[in-house]
C-alpha cells in the first residue's frame, strides 16, 4: 500500500498518474494531459473560507427573513420573500416544483453553510470535529445542488419582467442575495478540500506520535 507521503495524484478527469509538486502561493496545478485543475495552493484557505462562510451565513438569514421585492397596484401592495414563494407554489398544488426550489435555494445552502462552519471552526483551532470524513463526503455530493447564484439571476429577470407592468419596490433581501452570491463565490474560490484533508492528516499523525 502506498503511504500518504508518496504524494501521487491521479487526475479526476483522465486518471493520469502524476507526482505532486510544491506550489507557490496562489498557483494552480493542472493535469499535463487533459488540463483539469488538480489542486491549488490557496493562501490561508481555512481562515479565509471560514470568514466568508460566517459572513454568508449572516446574510443568508437576512435574505430569508426580509422581502425580496414588493409590487404596488392601485394602492394595494404585495410583497414576497423566498419562503413565501415556496409556500405559494405548494399551496397551488405544484408540490414537486415547490420542493425543488426549497431544496436548491434554502435547505442545501443552509446545510452547506452549517457544515462548513462546523468543520472549519474546530480545524482553525487545530482540532478535528467528529464525523468530519462523512461530512466532507456529503459536502461534495450536495455542492452542485445549492443554486443561490442562479436564484439571484432569476430575481433580476423577474424584476425586469415586473417593471413592465407594475411599480416595483426592491426589498432588503434583494441586496442581501446579491452580496450573498458574491460571498458564496468567494468561499468556493478559497475553499480547498485538499488543505482540509492535509490538516486532518497532520493532526492524526501527531496524535499517533504523542
Amino acid at each position, binding site marked *: 500500500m502506498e503511504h500518504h507521503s508518496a504524494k501521487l495524484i491521479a487526475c479526476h478527469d483522465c*486518471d493520469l498518474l502524476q507526482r505532486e509538486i510544491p506550489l507557490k502561493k496562489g498557483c494552480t496545478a493542472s493535469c499535463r*494531459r487533459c488540463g483539469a485543475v488538480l489542486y491549488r495552493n490557496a493562501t490561508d484557505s481555512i481562515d479565509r473560507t471560514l470568514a466568508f462562510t460566517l459572513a454568508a451565513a449572516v446574510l443568508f438569514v437576512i435574505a430569508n427573513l426580509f422581502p425580496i421585492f414588493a409590487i404596488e397596484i392601485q394602492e394595494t401592495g404585495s410583497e414576497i420573500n423566498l419562503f413565501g414563494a415556496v409556500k405559494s407554489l405548494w399551496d397551488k398544488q405544484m408540490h414537486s*416544483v415547490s420542493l425543488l426550489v426549497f431544496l436548491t435555494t434554502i435547505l442545501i445552502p443552509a446545510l452547506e453553510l452549517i457544515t462548513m462552519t462546523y468543520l472549519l471552526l474546530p480545524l482553525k483551532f487545530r482540532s478535528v470535529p467528529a464525523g468530519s470524513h462523512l461530512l466532507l463526503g456529503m459536502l461534495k455530493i450536495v455542492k452542485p445542488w445549492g443554486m443561490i447564484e442562479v436564484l439571484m439571476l432569476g*430575481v433580476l429577470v423577474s424584476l425586469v419582467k415586473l417593471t413592465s407592468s407594475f411599480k416595483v419596490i426592491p426589498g432588503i433581501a434583494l441586496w442581501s442575495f446579491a452580496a450573498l452570491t458574491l460571498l458564496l463565490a468567494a468561499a468556493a474560490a478559497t475553499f480547498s478540500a485538499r488543505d482540509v484533508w492535509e490538516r486532518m492528516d497532520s493532526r492524526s499523525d501527531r496524535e499517533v506520535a504523542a
Partner: protein
Amino acid sequence: MSGATSAAELGLCSCHVCNLVSSPGQGTGQAHCPRCGAPLHFRKPGSVARCWALLISAYILYIPANTLTIMETGSLLKYRKDTIVSGVVELWRTGSWGIAIVVFIASVTIPLLKLISLTLLLVSVQRRSGWRPRQRTRLYRLVELVGRWSMLDIYVVALLAALVQLGNMATVKAGPAALAFGAVVVLTMLASMQFDPRLIWDPIQKES
C-alpha cells in the same frame, strides 16, 4: 503520448471523496479508502448505462417541457399562455433584449447543449473512440459547469407566481411545463454526474 500512465494501469485507485491514491488490493469484496473510508472504484460503476437511462428520460421530458405552458399571465385586459420559447419571443418583442438573450441561453441553449453533448460523449465512449480526447474532456467540464443555470426559468416562474396574485386584477400561474422542465434540469445534472470522463481516455491508454 509517451510516459503517460493511468492510475488504473498500475492497480491504483483515486478516492472520489478525498482524492487519495491507494491500492485497493486483490481481495474480494468492496475496497475502502484508507484515509476516509469511502468505497473505492477504478471507474464510476455502471456509468454508461446509468447516464444513458437518465439522459433518455431527460429527452422524453424535454418534449412536454417545450410544448406545454410554463406560465399563464392574466389581467383585465389580456390573457396569455407562454411556453418557454414564446416567453423569450415576447421578451424580445417588448424590447427587453438583454433579458431575452439571458433567458434564451439559460432555458433553450444550455438544455440542448447538455443533451447533445452527453449523447456525443456517451456514443464516443461506447465506440471506444480516440477522437480528440482533450476537447471531449473540455466539453464534459463545460456541461458540468453550465448545467445548473437552466434552473433560471423555474425560479422566475416561482417568484412571479407567488407575487402576482391579486384576485381579478392580475395573476401569474405556473404551468405544467415548469414541472417537466425542472425534471429535465435535474435529470441532465444527474446524468452528467454519472458520466465518468476517465472513460474517454481509457482507449487511448491501451494504444500507447
